[in-house]
């Protein structure tokens, strides 16, 4: 095409258009606004499903079998037939823990006359006690949990799918899964990085700067830096990517200025979980952002877990997401801005149930 033709076809009309006052600024502003809106919608609104979760959680036995095969390659663990009791676990061979539990369940019904009150639940496999108290001008809800097996330590995803911006309230998800106790999870669906391993199924193994919590098939907590080798996820039961790690090996890891992902913030509503001993856990949810509740700093939260004897504790998504559901009733006062008391929709929950 001759140069003069190009000029008359493209350059001249463009010149005419942009010779008008503010036409360039207007056109570019529209482009920027469109891009801005697209990123906001993509990040916060548009739901995308990456994987459907079929039915209930993957059987824990399959995870245990995988873990056993992995361990068999390097060692031959001892096998014991001790029956399970609260707080006991078999560190040497997780498979036996769950086989023993399964055999026990085959012999007798899983739930026998559970005893439940507003703050207490007990059956032969699960014992939960909710304690409500005030500390640092904040109401704190602490659930002491003892399990017969890690198979009752479960997670669920909103709309039964792994994806981005898939959301339901903690209470809706808890109801769908008949959870006895549920707290909000790590809100994995708000990010496209960080490990996501739920009920033995790995959904995402991209690393992030966030600390990671893994839960072994024995039900033991262990925190790791976010950039750890993904191979440590092999044979794990759960993995969360939010953080930071509050306590590891009995040592408090956060300071007065520590905040989620290094962001500086005031005290907030919090959700976190810790482990005291094998199959003995503490879930803590605190209020915040209201006239009555200041909220907790991460250090104050860690101190709460330390006072309960936790050797490991890990922070989950808090703020407006913080929610604890017990026997279908919400325990805390969830709020995003302190004015409206309303549960926020989240992408996942951690729950205790069958």
């Amino acid at each position, binding site marked *: 095409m001759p140069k003069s033709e190009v000029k008359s076809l493209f350059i001249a009309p463009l*010149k005419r258009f*942009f*010779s008008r*006052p503010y036409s*360039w*600024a207007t056109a*570019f*502003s529209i482009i*920027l606004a469109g*891009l*801005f809106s*697209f*990123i*906001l919608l*993509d*990040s*916060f609104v548009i739901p995308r499903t990456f994987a459907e979760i079929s039915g209930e959680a993957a059987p824990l036995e399959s995870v245990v079998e995988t873990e056993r095969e992995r361990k068999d390659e390097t060692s031959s663990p001892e096998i014991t037939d001790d029956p399970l009791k609260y707080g006991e676990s078999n560190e040497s061979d997780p498979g036996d823990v769950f086989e023993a539990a399964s055999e026990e369940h085959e012999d007798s019904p899983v739930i026998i006359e559970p005893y439940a009150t507003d703050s207490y639940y007990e059956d032969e496999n699960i014992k939960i006690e909710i304690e409500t108290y005030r500390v640092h001008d904040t109401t704190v809800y602490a659930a002491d949990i003892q399990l017969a097996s890690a198979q009752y330590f479960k997670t669920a995803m909103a709309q039964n799918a792994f994806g981005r911006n898939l959301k339901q309230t903690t209470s809706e998800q808890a109801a769908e899964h008949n959870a006895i106790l549920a707290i909000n999870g790590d*809100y994995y669906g*708000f*990010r*496209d*990085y960080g490990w996501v391993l739920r009920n033995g199924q790995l959904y995402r193994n991209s690393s992030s700067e966030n600390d990671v919590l893994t839960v072994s098939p024995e039900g033991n907590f262990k925190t790791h830096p976010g950039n750890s080798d993904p191979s440590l996820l092999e044979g794990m039961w759960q993995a969360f990517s939010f953080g930071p790690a509050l306590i590891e090996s009995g040592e408090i890891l956060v300071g007065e200025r520590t*905040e*989620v*992902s290094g*962001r*500086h*913030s*005031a005290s*907030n509503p919090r959700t976190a979980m810790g482990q005291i001993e094998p199959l003995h856990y503490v879930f803590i949810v605190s209020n915040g*952002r209201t006239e009555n509740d200041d909220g907790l700093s991460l250090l104050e939260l860690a101190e709460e877990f330390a006072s309960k004897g936790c050797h490991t504790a890990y922070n989950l*998504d808090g*703020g407006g997401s913080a929610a604890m559901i017990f026997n279908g009733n919400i325990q805390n006062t969830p709020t995003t*801005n302190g004015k409206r008391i309303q549960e926020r929709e989240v992408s996942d929950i951690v729950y205790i149930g069958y």
Partner: protein
Amino acid sequence: MSISDTKPKPSIIRTIAAYLALSALCILITNVYALFAHGIRSCYMDFMFLYPLICGSGAYFLALKLFAGIQRKLSWRLASNLYNSGIAAFTCGSMMQGILEIAGTRSKATLLFCILGFSFVAAGLFFAAKSPDCRQKG
């Protein structure tokens, strides 16, 4: 005013003033946003005012002092539009990154703001440097 406008006007002074006002607006937006973000801040948002302040008013001030006849460049209007667009893209990108960081997420799409910013700033500087002075024409 048109792309091929050849009359030198005191538009640079106006541009510097506009960029200073934009810097102040950015600081205001940052602080208002922080009020609603429960004290959580992001350095991307905290420092986004630097784009209009340094790359905007600072650069135009330098142009005014060092290249007094720059407005007489044949493609001054085009160069100025391109450069301003680049600064706008950088500033919006910084704000977007700040919003996402405060919310606790990130998006690869924010890279588009950087690409736009670099492209337009480079194109603006190119036209400003390469375009002949309008007095030399004809």
